[in-house]
């Protein structure tokens, strides 16, 4: 039931406990208990809202930064990653296989904000060898959800 429950709330965390119980064929108490366990075990790390900011008047700039670093003895990449992810404007940090090591996403109000983060905070870390910054121009799909999806139904009724 655990994986099925996670699958359901991964797509919609607002779904009612009573609905989840019905859909999975268990009691509401079972669901509440399982959710608490999942939170305690750190499997559920948060409940967020997916927002298409482009449709609001708020200006936001998202940068994707490829970072090459020198791993440290004993800590490998973890310590460097921590130094980077502790900045609140950093939205995600992934360790990546291939041409570079860390992929950092960063959200700022302005382009300048991103530029100064990269030049003043990121590049100045001793272990950072080089960075390459990309700007996101448009988000088509995020977390499995297509933005601007036209939900108009074209289906006709049929006898069957």
């Amino acid at each position, binding site marked *: 039931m655990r994986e*099925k429950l996670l699958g*359901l709330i991964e797509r919609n965390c607002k*779904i009612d406990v009573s*609905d989840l*119980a*019905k*859909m*999975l*064929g268990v009691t509401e108490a079972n669901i509440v208990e399982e959710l608490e366990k999942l939170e305690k075990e750190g499997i559920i790390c948060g409940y967020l809202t997916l927002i298409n900011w482009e449709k609001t008047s708020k200006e936001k700039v998202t940068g994707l930064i490829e970072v090459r670093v020198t791993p440290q003895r004993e800590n490998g990449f973890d310590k460097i990653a921590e130094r980077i992810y502790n900045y609140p404007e950093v939205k995600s940090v992934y360790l990546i296989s291939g041409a570079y090591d860390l992929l950092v996403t960063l959200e700022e109000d302005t382009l300048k904000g991103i530029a100064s983060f990269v030049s003043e905070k990121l590049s100045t870390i001793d272990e950072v060898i080089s960075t390459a910054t990309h700007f996101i121009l448009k988000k088509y799909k995020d977390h499995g959800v297509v933005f601007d999806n036209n939900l108009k139904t074209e*289906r006709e*009724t*049929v*006898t*069957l």
Partner: protein
Amino acid sequence: MIHKLSEKVINIKPSGIRKFFDLVAEKKDVISLGVGEPDFDTPWHIREEGIYAFEKGRTFYTSNSGLKDLRIEITKYLKRRYNLDYDAMSETLVTVGGSEAIDLAIRAIVNDGDEVIIPEPCYVSYKPCAILANAKPVVIDLKVENEFRLTADELLDATTDKTKILVLPFPNNPTGAIMEEKDLKEIAKVCIEKDIYVITDEIYAELTYKGKHHSIAEIPGMKERTVYINGFSKAYAMTGWRLGYACAPNEIIRQMTKIHQFAIMCAPTISQYAAIEALKNGDRDVEMMKESYNQRRLFLIESFKEIGLPCFEPFGAFYVFPCIKKYNMTSEEFAMKFLEEENVAVVPGSAFGDSGEGFLRISYAYSIENLKVAFEKLKRFVSKL
């Protein structure tokens, strides 16, 4: 100069569902739980294969029986999923949906006056197909006490020396009933003893929520008297591609292929190429959709319990078939009143045969959000009855 048209056709009643949906079409903002069509779009990798077929200019006819590669994939799939052994080139036929295969099978097997046993409630096409083929439909009224399964006794009672075919539509539209292996063995015994053909319509086979789906064709002594029908509409959400298939011994397939070749030529080519991709790489999609249907099924069954609406647990297809007899209304009255007062469309069980009277067909091929809203409306509606 006006001549009278075919009496046989004139006398066929239009489908009861049609009549109901004509009314639904006139109303605005109706929540419909009426149509037996997956709410999913065809998985993208399958659509992509269709697009690729267009790009490659595959806009020609295929052979009458269907693409060789598709027929090979069909036989591999049937072996893998249901342990059925068919020879791709001599025992398969690709058709325009499972519904064409039903028509072909009946027409290929019956002579005038032969009897075709049809267990009801069932999909609306078997009876008219039998009538158009000059056969005589013989209805078995299935019972809710048996969870709408067909029993050997019921079948025995319905057989005469004119019985030619048994139509076996499980998992069932509209009841959601299934036939388990032990049920099928009982039926097979009668079919062999009475020497009758079986047309097994297994279009909902992938949507079985209890154990593994079994086909009657798998039982020793049955393959030689069975036309196995399946298709892509329900399992792969490919309704609009219009693609199904029949598998049967070569003597039967040969005759069916003749009718198909003159009436249809061949099934749509683009759809056939897409279907190869569906069979090769579609297992994950089927599993995902089935899991989603199952969650909605459980949601509805629990919801009916909550409001005290009796409903046997259906283990197949994507329909629930609750009983509304306690409200002293016919299915049609209930469905009409529900539509008028709450703007929700469900199909009266009587549209699927007399034994469907007193029941409603509710499709759960709709999003859980839709089902939830509809259920709240149903709750309010029955509380006032």
